[in-house]
């Protein structure tokens, strides 16, 4: 009976851990998403200093979260977001509004895809 109780406890812990992981990833990605979106809006209004600040904040936050994310999500997905954030930052430094918006949208799409991959839905299950 003790084995079965341990099995149920382990399953419950794994289930709770999975839900907590989704919550943490959602918190990380939504904050990242907001910063990139704000940077895009500033870039659209050619406020490059604010856009740069938002981008730096997003990159710093992403680097801080990487240690946690490396344990739970595929490393290729992390590399993709890292690279698109770097491309976005480069375009802001170059101050090209059209390319900045394009790179920003690409980064947003990839950030969103991390959240979608980890979320439990009918589509993700099957």
């Amino acid at each position, binding site marked *: 009976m003790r*084995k*079965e109780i*341990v*099995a*149920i406890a*382990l*399953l419950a812990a*794994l289930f709770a851990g*999975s839900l907590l992981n989704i919550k943490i990833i959602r918190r990380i990605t939504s904050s990242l998403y907001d910063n990139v979106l704000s940077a895009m809006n500033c870039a659209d209004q050619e406020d490059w200093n604010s856009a740069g600040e938002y981008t730096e904040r997003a990159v710093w936050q992403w680097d801080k979260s990487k240690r946690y994310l*490396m*344990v*739970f*999500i*595929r*490393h*290729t997905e992390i590399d993709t977001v890292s690279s698109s954030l770097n491309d976005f930052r480069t375009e802001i430094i170059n101050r090209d509004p059209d390319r900045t918006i394009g790179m920003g949208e690409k980064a947003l799409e990839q950030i969103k895809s991390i959240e979608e991959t980890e979320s439990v839905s009918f589509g993700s299950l099957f």
Partner: protein
Amino acid sequence: MAIIFFRTIIIFIIIVAALRFMGKRQLGELELSELVVAVLISEQATLPLQDIGIPLIHGLVSIITLLCCELLITAATLKSLKFRSFICGKPSVIIDEGNIVQSEMKSNSFSLDELAEALRKKDIIDISKVRYAVLETDGTLSTCLFEKEQAATPSVMGIDVKDKVIPVSVISDGRVLSDNLSLIGRDESWLRQILSRKGIESPTEVYYMTSDGKSDIFLAAKEIRK
């Protein structure tokens, strides 16, 4: 490289522990759910080893989940007969009173060749000697011969025999197994006495020795290397 090394060690420990929890049965005797778990565990374990881009936790979570499910299924099959027959199936009588039950053969997709092979593995060449044959849930065939075909036992012959003490290993590759010696009620001085009678000075000269503590002694001396 180092990642693969450490991951392999972690996965190895987890799989050994998982299989240890599943019990001591041999692979060929696995129940259906156990076989599924064994196959899936080995498959899941290799993923993070082959691709270091996949977090190790992905493999571990699936292995632990499978192990827990297997433990719960085993517990449920022990509690409920209905659940057990649903998960493991029921034994099928393939030969009943000497007749092959063709409907059971068909429903179990068991061919005549397979039946003949399973009987041969049990040293039965003539199928007409078999009274009952049951296909067990783990895929093995159990048989019962007609009374006239069964080997004569002392009880059938009316002979009174006493149960023998089972011989145990007392020396293995030169090492004295003290626990087994005390199991047959003997000690090392008795052992040395027996060895000296056989012209052997030390247990280190013995490759293998078994004894029941009385007259039944098997001794194989070590070969002398040239």
